[in-house]
């Protein structure tokens, strides 16, 4: 721990506006053991998701075929055999009632969870950056309008809005795409706020004024002078959005309005798991464990990325974990931490 701290502090003296070059991010991440382990776990999960067809081919199963012969309908649909039907054919057993292969559903579920979460994060980042930069560079009227909308978006509870939006789209729309769009379009408010604040503080700096005076157009300035400075805060926040998006997707699917069968998703697998936990405990434990490990490693990695990109935040607290809270309340957090930071500044000013 102390070793990591020294490295981080040494790195922190280098630059005031942390640059987000890939190499530097990697070197700073290397200094944090927990973040490295988390990164390895995330990489493994991504690999499993990408290789899902390969893995299931090796097992010789697929996620959607019913195996009526493997379930005991006389006992209400419990899998035949001990431990929920685990064996050479079905590595993790079969799903109660349907007999679908659990291993195949689990690895294909990783595709849905990670795919939806990452794609939703991309949408959130793109919309957030566009709105934030437009608000900061546009006329006062544009800024007022966009900031108001952002405020409202931040104020609306993510789960509730996502749930409600899922009601107005026809059932024929492909579900995973729909869930991605809904999560992506509901939760971009925090990124927009960060980007607006950051852009406002950079646009008055000399090098931006110089670019403007030499006749650059606004969008040229935005692209060449402002966006590079936005990379660090945006990457930091996006890293925290990914685990949050995974939680939301799994929650919506758990409620039965997200990703629907036959497409597997971890949250959806848990919908009926409590009924079967005695006969087939792995039907509950595997998706729950997969969700836990995925969200935890992404959260730790997100924390690590933040420490790597903003070393001062970590060293200020002297002990590891940093100030802001990850995943669970990420959307609420931004406005708030920004608010309390303001207050701290005001305190300093009045003292």
């Amino acid at each position, binding site marked *: 721990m102390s070793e990591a701290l020294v490295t981080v502090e040494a790195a922190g003296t280098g630059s005031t506006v942390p640059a987000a070059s890939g190499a530097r991010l990697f070197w700073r991440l290397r200094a944090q053991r927990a973040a490295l382990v988390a990164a390895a776990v995330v990489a493994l999960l991504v690999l499993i998701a990408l290789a899902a067809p390969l893995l299931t081919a090796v097992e010789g199963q697929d996620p959607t075929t019913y195996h009526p012969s493997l379930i005991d309908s006389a006992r209400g649909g419990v899998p035949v055999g001990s431990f929920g039907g685990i064996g050479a054919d079905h590595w993790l057993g079969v799903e109660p009632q349907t007999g679908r292969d659990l291993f195949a559903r689990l690895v294909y579920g990783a595709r849905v969870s990670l795919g939806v979460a990452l794609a939703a994060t991309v949408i959130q980042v793109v919309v957030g950056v566009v709105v934030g930069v437009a608000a900061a560079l546009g006329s006062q009227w544009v800024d007022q309008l966009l900031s108001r909308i952002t405020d409202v978006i931040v104020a609306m509870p993510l789960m509730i809005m996502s749930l409600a939006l899922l*009601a107005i789209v026809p059932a024929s729309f492909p579900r995973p795409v729909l869930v991605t769009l809904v999560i992506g379009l509901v939760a971009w408010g925090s990124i927009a706020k960060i980007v607006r604040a950051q852009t406002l503080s950079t646009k008055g700096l000399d090098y931006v004024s110089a670019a403007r005076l030499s006749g650059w157009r606004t969008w040229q300035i935005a692209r060449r002078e402002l966006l590079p400075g936005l990379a660090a805060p945006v990457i930091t926040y996006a890293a925290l959005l990914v685990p949050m998006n995974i939680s939301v997707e799994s*929650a919506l699917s758990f409620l039965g309005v997200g990703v629907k069968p036959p497409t597997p998703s971890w949250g959806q697998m848990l919908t009926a798991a409590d009924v079967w936990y005695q006969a087939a405990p792995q039907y509950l434990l595997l998706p729950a464990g997969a969700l836990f490990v995925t969200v935890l490693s992404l959260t730790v990695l997100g924390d690590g990325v933040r420490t790597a990109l903003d070393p001062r935040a970590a060293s200020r607290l002297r002990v590891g974990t940093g100030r802001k809270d990850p995943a669970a309340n990420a959307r609420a957090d931004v406005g708030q931490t920004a608010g309390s930071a303001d207050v701290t500044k005001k305190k300093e000013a009045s003292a």
Partner: protein
Amino acid sequence: MSGFGGFLLRRAVGTVITLLAVSVIVYVVFYATPGNVAQITCGPRCSPEQVHQVAERLRLDDPLSVRYWHFLQGLFVGQDFSTGTSVEHCAAPCLGESYQTGRQVLDIILGKLPVSLSLVVGAMVLWLLLGVGTGVLSAWRRGRISERALTAVTLAGTATPVFVIGLVLMIVVCGELQLLPFPQYVNFTDDPEQWAWNLLLPWLSLALIEAATFARLTRSAMLETLAEDHVRTFRAYGVGERAIVVRHALRGAFAPVIALNANNVGSAIGGAVLAETLFGLPGIGQELVHAVAVVDLPVVVGMVLVISFFVVLANAVADVLYAVADRRVVLA
């Protein structure tokens, strides 16, 4: 004191504007979607006559601004609907009526509100106690093994979805150990003791996650205060560690905790939806999930409005409390 009054007035006006903005956005999102709005609103099970009736009621031929105006009118002064044969009155905060059951949306929500309020408020008390307590403990014992353990536990807490914790709690406590019966909602007015016992697990599964967030916030706020110069001066004068932690560092954590608590109301309501569905509690969340599943749009829109209203209000109240805790905010 006039400064404080002015601050209150500014906050009140800001809150009203935000609420209006919420209603505009909700209206536009749900009633100005591409496609057959009347069909979507009425739901998949409506007959063509019903769809036609809904289209008339929503005045789909009018421009959007006129329709929104009628919608606002319904919210503030009520509305009269003609159902073909008779005229039906929908009183002041009119949120419309369900096309599936024919009941007024406001009645549905009010009927379910006690359950959801019991759940969220109880959980809030629990997570403040647990979270702030853990945070204080872990800031106090910083650098020791118990502090590391607390940090690990809170991290694991933030990474677990509500329904996973709830599932595990329910299976272990009710299923395996049989310490508690499977939760079943009992009215507080009927039997307060049974009410609390039955809500204990839902409270816990909501509170554990939020408590983890509060623990981290309290801890970092306290560590920040403990690192300040005036605390070092207290130490130099020989003020005891316990007094420093409780009297000074905890005070530093007060304002951020209030602020975070307000912001968490939204995520707590989201969590309540999960807890209600998981434990079978007949609250707003369960009704919302049902309404979404059967595409009962007036119910969905009404609930989104009411919940957003609560969240915006909670934020406004928190802002005021924040200002009471730290008067310097008012001057800015």
